[in-house]
C-alpha cells in the first residue's frame, strides 16, 4: 500500500482531494484545504486519517481537513465530518477529541495600548495570580452533586445566574453558551470526580490567557471589525483559550472504551481504534451525545468563569467597573464538538451531525444562530495563534457550504513537543518575548518552550489559505502584548 498522499488530486489551488478509490472502505472523497506549501508541511498521517474518516457510516459529501490540519487520533486535527443520523450515521469520540469543547473567547475593552502599556507587566502578573493555571490548580467554584448536574445542563447560563457574568454575555457565545441535549445521567462518577475542582482553571499545554492589541495596521476588514467591537486605534483585547478540563477528558475516555467494545455489535469495523463509533441512534450513541453535551457546557462555564476573573482583575487594577472599561465579550467559539445542524445536501435540507475536531463553526451572513448584531457580517471566528505570532479575528462566509460552514481554529503545530524543547529554551524565550513587548508568565518554562512560535505553522498562511478557499475571511490581526501560559 503506497502513501495515500500520492493519490491526492488537485481540485483548486487551495483544495486537494483523495478520491474514494484510493482506499477500500472509503464512502466519500476526502478533501484537504490549503495551498501547496501548507500541504507539504502536513505530516503523512493527516492524509491517512482523512481517508479513514471517509469510511464513517453515514458520511455526507466529503471527509474534510482544514488548512491548519495536523495528525491527531482517529480524525486529524482540523478534521470535519458530517454524518446523517437517519442514514446510519455514527458518532465518534475520535471526531471530537479528548478536550471536548476546547474553544476560544475574545473580549474587547475600551482601553488602548498607549493608555495602559506600562501597566501590562503588572496586569499579566495579576491575571497569573488570579486565574489558576498549570497542573494541580483548582478553581474557586467546586461543583458536586445536584449543583454540578445543573451546571452540566446550563453551561455559561449557570455562571450568569450565580453572579459570574452578565446576561448579555450569553448572546455572544456559540449556542448561547448552553448546549441542549445534555444528559448528566450519562456522565460517570469518575468524570465528575476528575473535573470537580478544575472548573474556572486554564489548564496547560496550548491553553492560554492573552492580552492583545488590535493595531490599526492589523485591521483587514474595517467594516466587520467595527461591527464586532473593534472601534478604536490600538484597542486592547483579551483572548481566553481553554476547554472542559478533566470532566471532558474522562467522558471521552469512558466512551472511547465503551464504543471499542460495543461497535462490533453494530457491524462497525473501522481501520483505527480511535475512530471507534456507535450509531447515533443507539443506546451508546445517545448516551455519548448526552455526556458530550454536558462537557460542552462545562467548557462554556469554564471560559465564562475565567472571563469573570479577568473582569475582576481589570476592574481592581484600573479602579473602574468592567462596564466602564468596556469589557465586553465579542464571541466564544467551540473547536471540539459534534453538533446537530441543518445543512443542504444536493438541494435538500437535512439534519446532520457535524463533527469538528480542531475546527471552528463559521456560519455565513444571515444564517440562524448568529447574534443579531452580527447577522449581516457573519459569525465571528477566533483563530488562536502562538504567543509570538499573534491571533486573528475572522468571520464566516456564505461560500463555506462545502465544509458545512467550518474553518480553521489555530496555527497548527509544525514541530513536535520534543523538537520544540530542543530548539527553544523557556527562560530565554520569556526574556526574548519581553524585549519585544510581550510579557509572559507561565506555570512551566519547559511547557513555554513547547509552545514557542517557531513550533507552529505560519498563522498568516493558515488564515490566508482559509480565506482563499472561501472558508472564512480575516477581519483583524491581533498582536500579543501579555500572556499567561498554563
Amino acid at each position, binding site marked *: 500500500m503506497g502513501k495515500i498522499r500520492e493519490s491526492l488530486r488537485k481540485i483548486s489551488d487551495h483544495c486537494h482531494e483523495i478520491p474514494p478509490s484510493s482506499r477500500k472502505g472509503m464512502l466519500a472523497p476526502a478533501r484537504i484545504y490549503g495551498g501547496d506549501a501548507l500541504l507539504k508541511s502536513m*505530516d503523512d498521517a493527516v492524509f491517512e486519517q482523512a481517508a479513514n474518516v471517509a469510511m464513517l457510516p453515514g458520511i455526507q459529501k466529503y471527509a474534510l481537513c482544514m488548512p491548519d490540519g*495536523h*495528525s*491527531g*487520533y*482517529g480524525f486529524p*486535527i482540523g478534521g470535519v465530518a458530517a454524518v446523517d443520523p437517519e442514514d446510519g450515521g455514527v458518532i465518534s469520540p475520535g471526531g471530537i477529541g*479528548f*478536550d471536548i469543547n476546547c474553544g476560544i473567547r475574545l473580549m474587547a475593552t475600551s482601553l488602548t495600548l498607549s493608555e495602559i502599556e506600562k501597566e501590562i507587566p503588572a496586569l499579566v502578573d495579576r491575571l497569573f495570580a488570579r486565574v489558576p493555571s*498549570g*497542573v*494541580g*490548580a*483548582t478553581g474557586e467554584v467546586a461543583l458536586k452533586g445536584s449543583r454540578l448536574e445543573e451546571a452540566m445542563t446550563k453551561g455559561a447560563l449557570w455562571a450568569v445566574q450565580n453572579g459570574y457574568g452578565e446576561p448579555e454575555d450569553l448572546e455572544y457565545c456559540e449556542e448561547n453558551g448552553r448546549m441542549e441535549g445534555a444528559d448528566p445521567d450519562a456522565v460517570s462518577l*469518575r468524570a465528575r*470526580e*476528575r*473535573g*470537580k*475542582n*478544575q472548573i474556572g482553571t486554564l*489548564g*496547560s*499545554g*496550548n491553553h492560554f490567557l492573552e492580552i492583545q492589541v488590535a493595531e490599526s495596521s492589523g485591521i483587514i476588514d474595517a467594516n466587520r471589525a467595527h461591527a464586532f467591537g473593534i472601534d478604536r486605534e490600538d484597542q486592547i483585547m483579551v483572548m481566553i483559550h481553554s476547554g472542559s478540563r*478533566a470532566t471532558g*477528558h*474522562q467522558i*471521552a*475516555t469512558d466512551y*472511547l*472504551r465503551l464504543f*471499542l*467494545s460495543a461497535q462490533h455489535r453494530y457491524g462497525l469495523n473501522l481501520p*483505527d*481504534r*480511535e475512530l*471507534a463509533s456507535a450509531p447515533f441512534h443507539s443506546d451508546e450513541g445517545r448516551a455519548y451525545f448526552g455526556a458530550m453535551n454536558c462537557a460542552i457546557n462545562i467548557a462554556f462555564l469554564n471560559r465564562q468563569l475565567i472571563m469573570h476573573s479577568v473582569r475582576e482583575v481589570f476592574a481592581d487594577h484600573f479602579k473602574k467597573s468592567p462596564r466602564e472599561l468596556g469589557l465586553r465579550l465579542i464571541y466564544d467559539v467551540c473547536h471540539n464538538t459534534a453538533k446537530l445542524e441543518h445543512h443542504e445536501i444536493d438541494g435538500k435540507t437535512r439534519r446532520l451531525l457535524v463533527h469538528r475536531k480542531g475546527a471552528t463553526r463559521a456560519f455565513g451572513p444571515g444564517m440562524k444562530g448568529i447574534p443579531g448584531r452580527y447577522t449581516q457580517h457573519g459569525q465571528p471566528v477566533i483563530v488562536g495563534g502562538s504567543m509570538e505570532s499573534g491571533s486573528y479575528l475572522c468571520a464566516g462566509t456564505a461560500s463555506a457550504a462545502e465544509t458545512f460552514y467550518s474553518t480553521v481554529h489555530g496555527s497548527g*503545530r*509544525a*514541530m*513536535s*513537543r*520534543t*523538537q520544540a524543547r530542543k530548539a527553544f529554551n523557556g527562560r530565554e524565550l520569556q526574556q526574548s518575548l519581553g524585549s519585544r513587548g510581550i510579557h509572559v508568565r507561565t*506555570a*512551566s518554562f*519547559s*511547557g513555554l518552550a*513547547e509552545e514557542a512560535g517557531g513550533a507552529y505553522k505560519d498563522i498568516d498562511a493558515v488564515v490566508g489559505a482559509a480565506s482563499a478557499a472561501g472558508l472564512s475571511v480575516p477581519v483583524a490581526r491581533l498582536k500579543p502584548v501579555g500572556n499567561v501560559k*498554563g
Partner: protein
Amino acid sequence: MAYERIDDITRADVAFKISAGNPGALFVEAGAALWAAMLEDMGPSSGAPPMRFELQAESIEALLHLFLDELLYHKDAEGLIVVPSAAEVELGAADAIVRCDALAERIDPAVHRFVVDVKAVTMHRFSVRREGGIWTATVVFDV
C-alpha cells in the same frame, strides 16, 4: 528495562515505547513514563504514604489503559502523584488483573515542576506485546 520517547508518532502530544522483562515491571515503567511526560522534576520525596490498588480488565492491553487512566484519576480527583513502585499482573484466559503498590505524593507546585498535563491515554497505536521474552508497550498521551 525502561521507557523512551518516540518523536515520530505525534506532533502535538507525547509518545513512549516501554519495555520490561515481565508484565508487572512493564506497568511500573509505564507509570514512570506517564509522570516523565508531565514532570521535569519530582522534587524530594515527602515520605508519602504507600497505597495499593487492584484493577481488572478483559485483556492486558485494556488493563494497561485502565491502569494509566487510574493514575490520571488520582491526579485530578485527589491531587495525588501516584507513582507505582511494584506491580503484579495476573493473566487469565478471559481477563487480566493488576495489583499495584505505589507511593502517593500530594501535588505541591512549590516542589513538583510540571511541564504539561496529560489529559488522556489515547488508543492511538496503543499496544502491549511480548517479543522474545521482553514485554513492550507503545503509549501516546494526549496533552
